[in-house]
């Protein structure tokens, strides 16, 4: 059993969209590998069937049984990391060996606030289609009538 690791610069795990993700990867494995692949990806988790999108892949051919390398990826403007009642969207860096399914994954947060966006439920859903919040009542404007 070997070791695969991803370390992010300054231990930072939350990033703004468009920001640079920097750090290093390290491997020390029992057998010689054909390749190592480092991917920047997002995937969904929750009730829906998983969606995955790999945005960047950095491949290291014949990496030897141990070594280290720098990582640097520029994040796109979105999608943001979020969690709702049905869906979570998770950003991650993933280092995988070929052949074999040995892997290490480092989750990160991509959001302008530095925290994943939380989506709550509007109360009273499914009872009727009328909204619970009204802009007119918030602004104190009476409804016009005929």
């Amino acid at each position, binding site marked *: 059993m070997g070791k695969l690791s991803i370390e992010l610069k300054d231990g930072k795990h939350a990033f703004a969209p468009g920001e640079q993700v920097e750090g290093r990867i390290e491997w020390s494995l029992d057998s010689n590998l054909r390749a190592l692949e480092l991917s920047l990806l997002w995937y969904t988790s929750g009730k829906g069937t998983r969606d995955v999108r790999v945005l960047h892949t950095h491949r290291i051919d014949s990496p030897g049984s141990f070594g280290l390398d720098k990582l640097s990826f520029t994040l796109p403007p979105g999608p943001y990391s979020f969690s709702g009642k049905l869906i979570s969207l998770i950003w991650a860096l993933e280092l995988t060996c070929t052949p074999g399914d040995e892997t290490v994954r480092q989750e990160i947060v991509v959001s302008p606030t530095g925290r994943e966006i939380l989506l709550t*439920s509007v109360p009273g859903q499914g009872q009727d289609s009328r909204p619970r919040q009204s802009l007119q009542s918030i602004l104190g404007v009476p409804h016009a009538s005929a």
Partner: protein
Amino acid sequence: MVRVDTRGSGGNVSKPASILGRLGLSLFFLFFFAMGSLFEVFILHEFARAMGQRSWKPVPCTIVASEVREDGQSPYAVAVGYQYEYDGQGYSSSAYKRGYSASDTYSGAHKIVQRHPVGRTTVCYVNPRNAAEAVLSRDSLLIGLAALFPLIFVTIGAGGIYFLWRRSPPGEARPIAPIAKRTKGASKYAMAAFFSIFAIVGGAMFYPLGIRPITRTIDAESWQPMPCTVLRAEIGSHDGDDGTTYSVDIVYEYTFNGQTYKCDRYDFIGGSSSGYKGKAHVVEQYRTASNPICYVNPKDPSEAILKRGFHAKLLLALFPLPFLLVGVGGMVYTLRSKNTGAPFLGTLNARASAPASDPLSLLRPVDTGPAVLKPKFSARGKLVGALVITLFWNGIISVFLANTSGLMLIFLLPFIAVGIGLIGFVIYQFLALFNPRPALHLSSRTIPLGGAAELQWSFSGQTSRIREFAVTLRGVERATYRRGTSTYTDENTFYEMELYKTTSLAEIASGQVGFVLPQDTMHSFKAENNKIVWSIGLRGDIKSWPDVKESFEIEVTPAACGRQE
């Protein structure tokens, strides 16, 4: 970090079934596997026999007897006899084809006799290991194609057992990126293979049920009317799993160019169905007819028909069309669709997936000009969609209904209820066609989170019928998942704000409202199975009539660049 629990039954990581549950499911899949394998072995055995017959030696033979024999009523037996020589020794045989004894129709039997008239020298196939065994026609190799059908059951059974018992690493330890790359194309081809079954079944049915009867009907317009003698006219009765079906069985004789022929073809569709009365009427007509007419093919006088021209029964030709269209359409759509999992809507897509050499440029929306919003489905589109589904559903139900009685009818009741509900839905959509139509203009095609926009609306048609009107901004998460063979979509509304509500006729007819999108929420997001959808909903209440209910999707983009503290 807060994460949605994925252990639910519809989630990606399903809760492992108990041993008992797995054993039960294994038995279920084992049944599929065993039945499929049994049929597969049987078909492959038949195919091997047909292949073996390809090595039988073709030798010249002389037909010494050839006639259609009607020992009872039907079927019609073909009595052939032929002589041949093999390795210098003479043999005789009466086997037309291995396993063949008789034809269901006179025409079928007569065709064989016609191909092998007495005195003709033809080719027969002799078993080299037993020269006394010979046939005039070898087994068809097409039975090999039938092996594909039980293969579906074998695959479901074996696949089900494999996935039930395979050991997989825990979700956290499983790589995502390589699996995503592998499955990206595979799911697309699996879907195309699924649709190809519809296309093959539709295509296979379309020739015998559709093209052939129609081309023959057109061709028969030039056939010659001839007087004929009805030899026998009766109603054929056929017992099946779904009850008894009936056919028009009329055997008639006619003379063409001095030669007498016999035929039993009534029309080009043939077969049997459940209705008795209509067939009894036809049979009675021909039984009592003084001068019946049949139509004879001048190119092949052994072919004739009693009923020619287009008639309602030919509508059966349309039956395979939905299968063919769904199959071909599904295959084309699946293979042409891009499996991108694109993060945003519309024009921002291309930029988001482009190399991020200037990440800040990606944050600027491409087109911020005003936009005319259109509903996903027009009123006419909804009506057509409802009509197609209703016709398809009720069409299939009516086929079963026509061949059903007793207990089976009780089983069909829920399906009939759905059919009636669909008819009600069509009526509702038809009435909604006469509703006032809204037109919506949004000040910006894309709105960033925290950004402001102005919405203008105007109605055409009888706006005065609307008693109350409301405009709502909604944010919804939409998750699609599969459970068994069905696909479900769940929705959760995470943002809802009524932007405007009025009962004033003038304001209903046209108006505008400004709004600001919240900043600390999620922008529009569209992947294959998971979506964040923002929309503007219009609701107009109409008394004793379908309400105006329209939803217009809008594109909400990420906020302007930089971190908000």
